[in-house]
């Protein structure tokens, strides 16, 4: 039995590891489609579309978050509208393509600069190891 923590976590973008990642989150959802019919006494559902979205925070250290920011802005080296992400924890991972929907940054007195990036999964998971 194994616990996982930040020590085990990492993040790859376009197949390359991203440096100085502070955290990543992924939220997975499946739509519930109602199939309740007349005379039924209980609501019934079936599964609909699956989706997933998430975010990560990268410290602004030696341009570590720049590829992610360029993906949001669709400029620089990142010309494709879709980027491939692999969110890893130990030997396990989620791998999928995503649209990068936002990147926020700021400079704060007494704190290091960091970039918070949001993404939305596009299409099915390419691979998962849970």
């Amino acid at each position: 039995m194994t616990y996982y923590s930040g020590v085990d976590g990492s993040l790859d973008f376009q197949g390359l590891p991203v440096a100085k990642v502070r955290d990543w989150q992924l939220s997975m959802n499946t739509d519930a489609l109602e199939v309740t019919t007349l005379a039924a006494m209980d609501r019934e559902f079936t599964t609909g579309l699956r989706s997933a979205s998430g975010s990560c925070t990268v410290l602004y250290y030696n341009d570590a978050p720049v590829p992610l920011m360029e993906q949001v802005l669709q400029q620089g080296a990142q010309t494709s509208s879709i980027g491939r992400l692999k969110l890893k924890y130990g030997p396990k991972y989620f791998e999928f393509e995503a649209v990068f929907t936002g990147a926020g940054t700021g400079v704060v007195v007494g704190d290091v600069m960091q970039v918070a990036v949001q993404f939305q999964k596009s299409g099915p998971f390419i691979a998962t190891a849970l």
Partner: protein
Amino acid sequence: MTVFLGESGFVELIRAGVVDNETYSLAPGDVSVAKDRFSFTYPTGMLITGDLVQFKATDGGLLDFVDASGWIDNTIHEDGAWYVNVDDVGGIRLYHYFGDAVNGEQQGRVSLQQPTRTIPLEVGVDQSTGRCLAQCTDYEFSNTREAADVTALTDEFRNQYSGIISGSGSLNCFFSYRQEMCDGTNQPTEKAAYLHQLVLRQTLGSKFRAKLFVIRPEVGAGNAANDQVWFEFDALITNSAISLEPTSLIRSRIQFVTTGPIRMKIATAEGFYLLQENNGFLLLNQDVASRLERDTV
């Protein structure tokens, strides 16, 4: 090995200079020549007795409510700075010396005269010279450096990045409000009452400059070299408290936070070594063409 006792400590306070951007007006009727006293409409508590206050006529005219004897050259100018004594209804009297202003008596008071016009005045407090804080019993000063956590995923140990530095502390002293002399000197003291007034000053703020001496000159046999060690910084008073109880001395406790840089300064007297045949010291000063070698033994 040398150790130092708290008696080598000392607190020097400097009233910080602040300028108010407001323009006030002084009408002829605001000046009482017979009492050498004047006033104008200004926020209560803006000026504190003992402040070195700069007055300037902003219309280009002369500051003619002050008699010519109030200036060093006996000539009226458009601006000037004097120590003020502020009474309980806001009346102001001018003095040449800090000690006289605190006492508020006739001696040393600057003569006034009836102004010929309504004078638009710009008022500011000048930075004064340092004075020892009267009857200070102890102080505490703490420096803090913030650390930004830059630990990333896969790190097994926390990594920190140096953040900004701040300081805070407290002063404890016996309450005093009258003019006194610093121990062992003929310099007037800064009194605890000033710090109580400073925290209540709204318009110009509660900033002051402090030198907290760890080692002061000419104190104790351990300081024969006349060394000085002190912290120097600007600070704002954040809390002042006074406690009274029967049979106990009245004490003031002042807490502050620093603003701007904090410096620890050490002034040591130069060493003077007696050159002896053995174990003597010589300052080796030579250019690259010299052939003298250092003794590495």
